[in-house]
């Protein structure tokens, strides 16, 4: 893992050689570099990320992400909220898969209180978790096209994502910010007709995946733009703390849904963790495409055997969490998302540390952008897939 040979892979060596050649040329021709600020307002940054890129022609000499333009201080804000109020804050972190943000916090609070949600609530939580993953990642698949210049896929993504949002809305009442998870269970039961509707939608989404695969992944231009671009070797991915699909695309077989035991229903169904040996942009996109497919499989199987029973455990009317500390992380759409909750026995947390996936995922940007061309910056950023709310919190 720490061997220097793998640290300096062939691409980096080639880059250093090209830099040396360029330096000699620059002395003769007296060219100077140019600093390009990509962002804060730039369509490729999904919000307000700023990438400071020092260019030599169209080649990046060094690049550095500068985040914090959208910092909303959720860690601090949790300290002045009660536990049930925190969910309405944290589901704005990764705004595309917002239900998934609530779950680890609620699980941490439940762990501190020593209660567990009844099986039906666990099942519905898992279903909603996977639906929000589909809503998130299917938009990624469409957005990928826009980043690479194809304008049609994003509309297909919005078209089919709409069905998923309708399901989430029918259940929780909110399309983007459900605020549905409660300590000890859920706010409501599933609405009538949810199961049949969801089955139909999952079928639509599998068709969507096939469409995207035909339109985008099978396209030779797409492949030539993504294959071999932004390669992250396995050990580098580990050193920078990548998680989620970015890590799996580098060949790290690691999925928190499978690798840890939580009071959720993932271990009750049959699904597969996909990995890819290449670690390039294509691998990262392909892994996400497979993830949507697996999520539809998980939801389909969970729908088959939802247990009956209550959706809420016995919890006191006023929730006071006993003194202690708890860390719970789950495999969110963007990667590992965890909450470290410190309680002093009050109505709200004393301190919350939010570990969001995108913040760690973009930490690799200075390493990976060295020596690439300007169009590849966009490919690499798109394939790393960050959401600004998830970086800045």
């Amino acid at each position: 893992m720490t061997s220097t040979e793998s640290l300096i892979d062939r691409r980096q060596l080639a880059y250093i050689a090209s830099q040396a050649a360029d330096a000699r040329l620059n002395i003769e021709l007296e060219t100077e570099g140019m600093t390009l600020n990509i962002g804060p307002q730039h369509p490729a940054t999904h919000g307000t990320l700023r990438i400071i890129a020092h260019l030599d022609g169209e080649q990046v000499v060094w690049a550095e992400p500068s985040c914090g333009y959208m910092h909303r201080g959720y860690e601090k804000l949790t300290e002045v909220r009660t536990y049930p109020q925190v969910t309405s804050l944290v589901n704005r972190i990764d705004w595309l898969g917002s239900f998934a943000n609530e779950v680890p916090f609620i699980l941490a609070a439940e762990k501190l209180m020593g209660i567990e949600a009844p099986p039906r609530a666990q099942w519905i939580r898992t279903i909603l978790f996977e639906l929000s993953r589909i809503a998130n990642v299917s938009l990624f698949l469409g957005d990928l096209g826009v980043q690479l210049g194809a304008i049609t896929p994003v509309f297909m993504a919005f078209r089919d994502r709409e069905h998923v949002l309708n399901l989430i809305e029918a259940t929780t009442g909110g399309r983007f910010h459900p605020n549905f998870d409660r300590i000890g269970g859920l706010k409501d039961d599933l609405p009538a007709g949810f199961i049949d509707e969801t089955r139909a939608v999952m079928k639509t989404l599998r068709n969507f995946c096939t469409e995207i695969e035909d339109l985008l992944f099978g396209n030779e231009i797409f492949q030539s733009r993504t294959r071999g671009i932004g390669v992250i070797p396995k050990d580098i991915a580990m050193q920078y703390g990548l998680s989620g699909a970015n890590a799996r695309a580098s060949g790290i077989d690691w999925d928190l849904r499978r690798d840890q035991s939580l009071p959720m229903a993932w271990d009750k169904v049959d699904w597969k963790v996909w990995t890819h040996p290449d670690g390039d942009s294509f691998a990262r996109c392909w892994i996400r495409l497979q993830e949507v497919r697996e999520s539809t499989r998980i939801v389909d199987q969970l729908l088959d055997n939802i247990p009956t029973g209550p959706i809420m455990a016995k919890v006191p009317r006023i929730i006071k969490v006993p003194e202690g500390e708890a860390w719970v992380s789950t495999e969110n759409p963007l990667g590992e998302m965890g909450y470290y909750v410190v309680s002093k026995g009050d109505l709200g947390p004393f301190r919350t540390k939010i570990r969001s996936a995108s913040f760690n995922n973009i930490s690799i940007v200075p390493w990976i952008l060295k020596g690439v061309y300007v169009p590849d910056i966009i490919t690499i950023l798109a394939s790393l897939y960050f959401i600004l709310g998830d970086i800045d919190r």
Partner: protein
Amino acid sequence: MIALLAADLPYWAQSLLRILGGLVAVLLPAGTIVYLFLFKMMSFMQSRLGPMEAGPYGSMQLFAEVGKWLQKEDITPARADRTIFKIAPLVVLASTFLLVAVVPFGPDAWFTNFEAGVFYLLAVSSVSVLGILMAGWSSANKYSLLGGLRAAGQLIAYELPMVLAVIGVIIQAGTMNLQGIVVAQNGGSMFGWNGLGNPYILTQFTGFIIFMIAVQAELTQTPFDMPIAESELVSGYMTEYSGFRFLTFFIAEFATAGVFSLIASVLFLGGWGVPFAWFDWKSIDDISDWMNVVGPLIMFTKMMVLAFVIMWVRFSYPRFREDQLQRFAWKVLIPISLVNIMITAILKVAF
């Protein structure tokens, strides 16, 4: 028609007619392409309706947009090179008008019947590069500069396959006059059979494909739209333009798409003509005067088909990278078109 355009009218009236005709020939295709393809076809391909409010099925949307652009403030960046910044869009649009000047629309319906028409076309089509470079450089914006440089590199690289693709047509037709190429196609025969004339799309298919790819690159449409790549360069050389000057770029983009479709239909699809064998025409003198009315309609239909293909590719493909595009031009298109020229020349001599 000859009487109307050439002989009886005073010079100023002829010029006025030609200017009006040129405006129609440039703006009508541009408007139709924007409404039919950019607004409607793109929307239907993307599961949405597109503009529906302005006029029936949004047909007046274009006028609404033009009205909006005309109202906008004409901003010139503080550090811009003001004169060049202001001239640049006009240079780009001017190249479109220069292009349409030699396109024949009927046996007598042309603006100029230029002997070396193809030569002139290929020369004039590069004028837009100047405008784009001027826009990119004078904007005092790094994204614009990158876009302008990319556009220059790309347009120069794709000029060559385009010229080489057209040489095959010139060899077959034996003339560089566009009118002559149309007559050669419709009056010709393929291996002795003249039921369809000899549209060069059939006998010069390789040349046609290369020409269309080069046109796609000349127009900076996806998959060759790196100069204006929205997701990386934020519209490239057009970034700093607003109001009427942006509108000029916009018109130039789609008008040039229309004009290049017209040129492609003249070079490869038989232009305004119908196969002469259908009506027992022997030469250009036998052609009925009605072709001056029907011809432009035939041209328009062929233009729309080609523009449809251009836009279809535009809406479904992702974008190349700049170095991949150069590699594609120099290593794939140019060798193929050279081989094409050789084979055409050999066959021309043999038959």
